[in-house]
């Protein structure tokens, strides 16, 4: 059966076949993974919304602190899930010869990379939908345009899926992968959470990190999709000119 798409060098079945493998494996263990997709975000959102949110009474440009924080948490979660999938999980697959076995079929390494990043995007979208649903249940997201969160979810999934795969490709051992979380993910997670460049949410919030702010802003790959997300959630469009 020849399912090759016209673009020379890329076989569609290789990408979909690998994606299906990840999906089947995910479904087998969904009861465990779902806690990460839904339960953890609930805990964080509730802690932030009802915990810290009670202490912070005024956030300029947002009705409440929880509503101000929700988009950042959603994107941060998506980033972690995409990264985890292509760093920790991909390294395990590498270690257990899953890719080596896949390579005995007519698949190439480029297609393996594409299949894994596609799966990271899927995980990112699932996480965003799950977390956003929880946030919507608490009425922290209440604009119909919030459906647009799928766009930044795909952006985050692609960016961090690729970044995670890069780390697992060069990692000499699993401990090395800690770096992707400590040096890449954590700073970027707190970057979108602390504030936004988006005009309606000024940077002078209580979580601004003083002199570190500029640095974090320049490294944060989450900022652009986050700004788009905030635009959708708040009903305001992203402005490119800031």
């Amino acid at each position: 059966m020849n399912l090759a798409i016209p673009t020379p060098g890329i076989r569609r079945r290789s990408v979909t076949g690998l994606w299906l493998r990840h999906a089947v494996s995910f479904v087998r263990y969904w009861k465990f993974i779902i806690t990460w997709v839904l339960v953890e975000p609930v805990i964080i959102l509730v802690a932030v919304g009802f915990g810290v949110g009670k202490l912070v009474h005024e956030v300029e440009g947002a009705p409440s602190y929880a509503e101000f924080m929700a988009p950042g948490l959603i994107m941060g979660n998506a980033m972690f899930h995409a990264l985890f999938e292509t760093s920790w999980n991909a390294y395990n697959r590498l270690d257990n010869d899953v890719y080596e076995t896949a390579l005995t079929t007519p698949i190439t390494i480029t297609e393996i990379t594409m299949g894994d990043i596609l799966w990271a995007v899927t995980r990112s979208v699932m996480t965003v939908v799950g977390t956003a649903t929880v946030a919507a249940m608490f009425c922290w997201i209440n604009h119909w345009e919030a459906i647009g969160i799928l766009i930044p979810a795909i952006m985050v999934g692609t960016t961090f899926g690729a970044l995670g795969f890069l780390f697992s490709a060069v990692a000499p051992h699993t401990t090395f992968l800690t770096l992707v979380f400590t040096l890449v993910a954590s700073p970027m997670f707190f970057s979108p959470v602390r504030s936004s460049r988006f005009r309606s949410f000024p940077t002078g919030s209580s979580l601004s990190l003083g002199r570190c702010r500029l640095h974090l802003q320049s490294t944060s790959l989450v900022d652009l999709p986050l700004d788009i997300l905030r635009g959708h959630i708040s009903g305001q469009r992203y402005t490119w000119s800031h």
Partner: protein
Amino acid sequence: MTNETQQKNDVVRNPDGSVIHVDNIRKLYGDFVAVDGISFAVQPGETYGLLGPNGAGKTTTMRMLSGLSPVNSGNIIVAGIDVVKDNRAVREVMGVVTQHDGLDNGLTVFQNLFLHGFLAGLSRKKSKARAHEVLEFFGLRDRSKSNVYELSGGMKRRLAIARSMMTTPAVIVMDEPSTGLDPQSRNRVWEELAILKEAGVTVLLSTHYMEEATILCDRLSIMDNGKILDEGTPDQMIERHAPKEVAQLRVDPASLRTVRDYLNVREMSFREVGALVSVTGVNGDRPDLSGLTDVEGVRSSYRSGNLEDVFLSITGRELRDE
């Protein structure tokens, strides 16, 4: 399944009539020459073995054949496909059993087969049907919903071989099919490989077990240090290089010196592995050990020459030493 595999006997042949044609391939890792200009051809329906110790270049050769590792020079043609130029196409007609089973622990037995077939290009429906077929053939139907990590070593190996059959390949390449298995599981794997052979499947396997090579292979090459030292049927190789009979002495440590002196005086060649002394007579004839019958702590028996003797004779080293 048998009917389907038999059809593969009509596999596309290379211009010289072979299914696998390897011509003077070389593989370098930096300055190290892993494979040093080897050539061989495998005919349709034949089981061909590469026999050699670890590090001889067998696995590297297998990887080059299946298009997973580029060659530095030389040509490989499999079922009419130029592997050097089109390494993707060759994996459409070739089943590969890697040295480590490479089974997916995140999936069930059935899912391992089904997803492999799907990735290889079968439709979902065909891949499911084929997975059931090979599970039946390899006696794993009852385990189809088991987790892979619950299987025994022998079952895992059989599943890995079953997986290579998912696409009804023209040729199967197996890297050490029974390494690490207990004798019972090994026999089971050999039985199944014999059935595949009856069905007309062309198999290239590598092994460092001379018993495996003797039982399974129609023809074989002896490899060492990246080179093929000789090629032929197991019988031809034994006739060419091994003594007709070898005496095996089990010697208590106290009598070892007496035995050594006896053999040295009569200029018989011998080798010691622990308490076992293998003795070869002059011109490969049955060695005369009549003088040792009265020595205490020496038990003797005789066996025919085998591929291990061939390897020793060609390389001067034990196969098992590596």
